[in-house]
């Protein structure tokens, strides 16, 4: 194959076939995908969770992952947040002509590793190559499907007053890493994306505690925006304890230099869990037993004080509103 992706590779002809067999099947192949039929034949019954997401991250490589692994983690996590076991995934690549073949291989290989770790099967895929400038290097869409194993499934509108609010670990790592890498910023201490597939931990959690009311991964918009979505849908108030929200010192430091708030930065390997108070300790125990949840802690409580709002109890004992992010966070003047 050429050392760069050419328009030929998206032609549907021999070049496309070579790309698929020598690259995609090499890393993502399995009995179903290898048949290269127009569609996958799957055996699905009962209640299923299905989710789709497109990944356009810039830069495509960042400390802790790349767009390939991220495209798996993002969709697997979305399916798992429904109290489901993710089983199948599809992927569609839109590649800019001229992308180095080595870069594409690194991405597909990372995707292969990620599906293996998550235990999901890639059952269908698509590759398009578009003229230079039509996309920024590479975009990937993934769709996932899984079996829901709890009834009712966790849902954003199911939080109740009195519920405990838990987070599976530190926040802001992914968002700051991507921003720092994109802008070529050197932070004093290294920051790394937390991108990871959370499905095994989540399945363990909902199997033991099917009473979980809400599971959400605070991706774009971060913890603050996700909590606002939950309080709005459930018409409850979330009272957060500022002291207990875990943020790595290096993330705190980087944010303070750039004038960013870690509460609004994206995460890709963390989840929020809202469940009845009686199960909070057990949930934390389950989360902390897994490396992906080792820093899990309780950050707040749902109340009926200010329905639809997220209220921060500050370190000083004061109260303030924690609103939804308006647009993107931008670096400020001073």
């Amino acid at each position: 194959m050429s050392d760069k992706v050419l328009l030929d590779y998206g032609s549907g002809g021999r070049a496309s076939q070579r790309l698929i067999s020598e690259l995609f099947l090499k890393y993502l192949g399995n009995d179903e995908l290898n048949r290269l039929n127009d569609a996958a034949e799957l055996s699905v019954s009962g209640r299923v969770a299905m989710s789709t997401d497109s990944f356009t991250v810039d830069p495509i490589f960042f400390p802790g992952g790349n767009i390939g692994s991220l495209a798996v983690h993002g969709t697997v996590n979305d399916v798992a947040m429904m109290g489901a076991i993710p089983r199948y995934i599809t992927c569609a690549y839109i590649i800019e002509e001229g992308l180095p073949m080595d870069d594409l291989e690194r991405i597909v290989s990372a995707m292969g590793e990620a599906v293996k770790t998550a235990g999901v099967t890639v059952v269908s895929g698509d590759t398009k190559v578009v003229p230079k400038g039509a996309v920024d290097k590479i975009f990937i869409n993934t769709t996932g499907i899984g079996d829901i194993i709890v009834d009712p499934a966790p849902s954003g509108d199911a939080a109740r007053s009195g519920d405990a609010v838990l987070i599976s670990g530190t926040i802001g790592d992914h968002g700051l890493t991507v921003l720092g890498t994109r802008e070529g910023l050197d932070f004093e201490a290294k920051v790394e994306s937390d991108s990871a597939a959370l499905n095994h931990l989540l399945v363990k959690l909902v199997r033991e505690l099917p009473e979980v009311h809400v599971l959400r991964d605070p991706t774009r918009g971060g913890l603050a925006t996700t909590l606002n979505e939950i309080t709005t849908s459930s018409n409850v108030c979330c009272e957060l304890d500022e002291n207990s929200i875990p943020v790595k010192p290096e993330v705190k430091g980087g944010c303070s230099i750039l004038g960013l708030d870690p509460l609004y930065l994206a995460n890709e390997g963390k989840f929020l869990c809202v469940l009845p108070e009686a199960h909070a300790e057990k949930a934390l125990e389950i989360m902390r037993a897994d490396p992906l949840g080792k820093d899990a802690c309780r950050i707040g409580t749902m109340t009926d004080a200010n329905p639809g709002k997220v209220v921060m109890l500050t370190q000083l004992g004061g109260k303030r509103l924690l609103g939804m992010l308006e647009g993107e966070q931008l670096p400020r003047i001073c």
Partner: protein
Amino acid sequence: MSLEFLQKFRDPDMCRKILDKMESELDRDLRFMEVCGTHTVAIFQSGLRSLLPERIVHLSGPGCPVCVTHESEVNAFLDLAGRAGIIMATFGDLMRVPGDGGRNLKKATADGARVKVVYSPFDTLKLAKENPGDLVIFIGVGFETTAPTIAATMKMAREQGVDNLRILCFHKTVPPALDALLSDEAINIDGFILPGHVSAIIGVKPYDFIAEKYSKSAVVTGFEPLDILQSLMQMIDWRKKGEAHVVNNYTRIVGANGNQKALEIMYEVFEPADALWRGIGLIPGSGLEIRPEWEQFDAKKEFGIVIKDCPPLKGCKCGDILKGIKQPNECPLFGKACTPANPVGPCMVSTEGSCAAYYKYKLD
């Protein structure tokens, strides 16, 4: 400065003690103005706003660079954005600032303008070198904090022979603005929380006139809750004793004489000039212009840009808010026609603007 060290300035017990003392010693309303937008945000974000005695009337002053950028200045950079062969470089704050007809840099970008958000003025040098066929115009907005770095960037550009970088210089200086506020009889302020960042450059002496000319107190203050509370407590004590002082409480960052090297470089490249402040109007000697020796970098000269006063936006009370005459929620547009999603005035668009902070953080 380590975060552990800063934690000492957030000690809840110490803060409580000062708050209790304040509560017992305040014998009348105290109207204090924090000049700097970062203080505004710090006061809300730490929850101090909800803990301060009700008799402390908290006013946000003209210390947010975005908020005081004049309508005519906004229109000037929006007019340049989108022209062929021009790349506008800016700090992120300016992207959503509305100009006439609801224009802003975000919309201009969507329409094809080349606008690059930078993290430091030095990034513009790299940008200019990477785009030799284009003119890179940096929107120089800000106070004494940012002006020296921009001056250093211009010096570096000259040394390196970079000839496609221009500066649209809208810099303003803080002391003349405070003088203008204090000389306005409609404005009633007991004391100022003076900006930490600006003071790190200019030092403390330029504020002496506040006590000497107007018999008011002012304290250069850091951004942690204890910094702010201690400064307020001092001003309460002085007022009770009938005294007025200007002191530096932020000695861990601010030296009495500021940063001489930064001032030297700033005045080597810029010279004082009159400037228009949004909502306030013309303040003599409150701006910085590029000196004639450096006019090769002057975008205003090259494009013949004239900054003219114009009537404020209908209904927008940003001017009264910047002057401490009105609180954000007293503006008829606040939270209705003017929200962070659709800001009418600059106090709502800037992350450090008083209206945006009020909207974002205030619970009731």
